């Protein structure tokens, strides 16, 4: 088994992310696979991106703009 290195992009472990821990993944060139040294997550880049997208779903208003007027209007609701 070969040495794990930082990947071209320094992804964080998606599984650790979901439990509020930032932990850098290592990349195994031989297997073309990322893996976590803390938990048991391993996978390909696509799986990381898929899980990041899932992580973001909790931010339902992530792309919504609230101006001062919008926020003040919330007071009157």
């Amino acid at each position, binding site marked *: 088994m070969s040495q794990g*290195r930082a990947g071209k*992009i*320094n992804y964080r472990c998606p599984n650790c992310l979901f439990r509020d821990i930032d932990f850098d993944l290592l990349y195994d060139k031989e297997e073309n696979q990322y893996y976590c040294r*803390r938990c048991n997550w391993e996978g390909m880049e696509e799986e990381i991106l898929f899980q*990041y997208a899932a992580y973001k779903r909790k*931010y*339902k208003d992530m792309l919504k703009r*609230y101006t001062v007027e919008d926020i003040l209007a919330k*007071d009157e609701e």
Partner: protein
Amino acid sequence: MDKFILNVIHRPELVPEYIDTSAQEGQTEEVSKKEVVSESLDIFRLQQNIAHQNGLRTTIQMTYSSLFNDECIEMAKQYHQEFGDEIGHTFLGLNCKEFRDKYHSKELAMWLFPMDLKQKIVVDSFELFKDVFGFYPTSTGSYFLDAELINFIKEKYPMIKTAIATCFEEGPKIFRHTNSSWYTLMDGSPWTAWIPSKKNTHAIAENEDDDIGIVALPHLSRDLLAIMDNAGDMFGTHPQNIIRGLIYEDDRLPYMYNLVDQYQVMKKFNKGFSYNLAYVGPGWMGKGGRWEAPYRILKKSYEDFIAYYGHLKSEGKIQDMTMTEFADWFRGNQPRSGPLVGLWKDLLYGTKNQAFWYADSKFRVQIDLKQGGAITDLRPYASKLTRPCGAGTKANQDASYPYIVHSRYRAGAFTHYAGEGAIKSCKVRHGAEEVDVSACRTTGAYDEGEGCRILNIRPVEIEFANLTIKLATTYTFKENTGEILISRKFIESSDPNAKIEIDEFLASCWGTTEYPEDLTGCVLSVIEKDGSRNELSYEYRCREYAADNIQSVEAVIPHVQTKVSLIPQSPKCGGYYEEGYSFAPNLKLGVVKTIGLNEELVTCLKVEQAK
């Protein structure tokens, strides 16, 4: 008043804390590498240019290493001359070759050195600053500075007017987020500018005698709702922190504007004043990217963010100041002891959730409106705890101000045992049925009165098997008295003759983290109307006492020198204490009264220093 004030701060950090991703591969003992220095100065220059292009002045915080770098010193002087930027000082970025050669230490956190070294470093770096610039700085900062160190600085260098003195709610949540490796354990401070007590930096000064002599600033202005259950290092006036939280899509981060706009709204609760601090260290804008985010997005997010402040300035909606200018303004225009108030609305999760925050010289209180307006975090500033931090102290890394209620660290409404964890809430009973108001989601509205700030909680509906009622709650904070009047009014009923019992209770413990601390020796008392007192010393024996007609119930928590009482303001109220046991390590106080429609129970929650 209509004042929204901004401090933009940049620091030339020649060995940025974060820039060196190759550290993991063991290549970095040579931390002073030329490329790192030149990249770091490039980032500093870029950040400065972005601010100036948007018509904003900055405070340049000179780090220890930058005071040895001629190019950097020259840049600072030029920026000062051309744009009026302040040349200030910081204890961040201490670690560099010169520092290690002199102090033989790899410690990077100013607040964690032993006191003798802290003092040495203060004198060393301030004198170095004077040698370089010909004057002493008037502003400084770190992630945290304890009161003992600020007192020393003020004694030696009385010209210091302001400091970044803490990071708001950097505590156990951030510690976990950083794989338990980032030792900024400093929960419990105000979220916006304040004047600290001489005894404890977190606590707001009581009066002139207690005034530590600086205006303290929190490192970043953070989302007061998102940080309650999440690490704050994703939700602040720091675009790359927002990227860290994955709150973005490509280069779109509208949340950063929403955050600034909600801070504009905070003027409404603070007599027309609000404040923002933007402070991005160079390590967050490295060419190599930061985690998944490429340089392009890191850079663009900062450009967009600062441009928004520039836009607000051009519309007259924000005023940029340097740190020292702001300290002077604050001294002249804001009361020494607060209060500081915030009613924060969720702008991220798509809920109607709100949080109310209040701080003055007696306490910092967090009210969760989603939990029926329960108090879910309470820090007793009244006790003005002496609690130095750093090597050689009892607290060492744990620089937080202790809580006496923390519902997220210490269970709150939901536990695996009978009874609740730490929370200040109320129960409504009808016959054999009981509902905790913390189960009723609601929202709040802000109001002010003479010498008080008011949170009106929108009435909640409570359904029993044969009865539906509405209960209205109001919190009245009597400024700088340590007293909150809590009114529970029975305003609607499906049966106009029905009676309900209100149990206004406090489940309390103390600590700074999720873990329990010793409660042995806490004293619980029920004081009856005739003056007789039933008292108990806490031993985890699950004892309890109740009386029908009381003056007050109280608990003294000697470990944090705090006395907390519930004092009924309505006639003929019962009251009780409950001791707790090791699997339920809390103490509980309650005031109880049966009321009919249109009647209310008013209780005073009082927090005092226990001698």
